[in-house]
């Protein structure tokens, strides 16, 4: 069964879709096998990070809108995490509840590493999906 689409999708839309839902940009350009492989792997990696270190490994730095450079310099790993999409913001808002405990030491580092690597892999997917959309004229 062919998994290709002939509809044109602009690369910025593909890039934005991939950021919102990892892998969805590939789906838009008709590469559904690649979309599922990339998307499911990235989401599982992000969730595994929160499973290992607790939801509070994802934390939006204070003042990220008012002074972004200062805020990000305090938590540079947030740059990687936010690339995984809105799931980062959702996890951060959930983690502010007092029921969630902050992890420390190596477990925290590994949870942070998992979530940040998931975001960095999603950046690769964003660039690749947008390139394929533009290079193939939006057709796979």
């Amino acid at each position: 069964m062919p998994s290709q689409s002939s509809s044109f999708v602009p690369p910025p839309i593909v890039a934005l879709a991939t950021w919102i839902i990892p892998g969805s940009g590939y789906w838009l350009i008709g590469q559904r096998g690649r979309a599922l492989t990339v998307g499911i792997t990235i989401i599982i990696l992000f969730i595994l990070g929160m499973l290992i270190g607790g939801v509070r490994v994802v934390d939006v730095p204070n003042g990220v809108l008012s002074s972004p450079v200062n805020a990000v310099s305090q938590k540079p790993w947030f740059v990687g995490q936010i690339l995984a999409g809105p799931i980062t913001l959702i996890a951060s808002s959930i983690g502010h509840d007092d029921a969630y405990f902050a992890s420390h030491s190596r477990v925290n580092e590994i949870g942070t590493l998992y979530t940040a690597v998931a975001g960095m892999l999603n950046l690769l997917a964003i660039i690749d999906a947008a390139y394929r959309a533009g290079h193939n004229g939006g057709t796979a």
Partner: protein
Amino acid sequence: MKHLFYFLADEGYHYELFKKPLPVWKYWYLLLLPLCLAISIVYKAIRCESMRRVPREAIGLFVFIIVVMVAAAGALAALVNFLD
């Protein structure tokens, strides 16, 4: 689901899914395996033109990463022992 991880925990630690960190502080090095596997899968899914080649190439890359990391760890351990 949370009972699944009780065997990892020290006595007295009550793990709560997503609320508390997973009790894996004795086995943290094993967590490199799923991370390397995920990196291999996504990288090869992006690089390969045909998705049929992805499983085989991802496993190859996964093994390569693990072998290089073990070799690097061994070399660093030998260096530290030598300096001591």
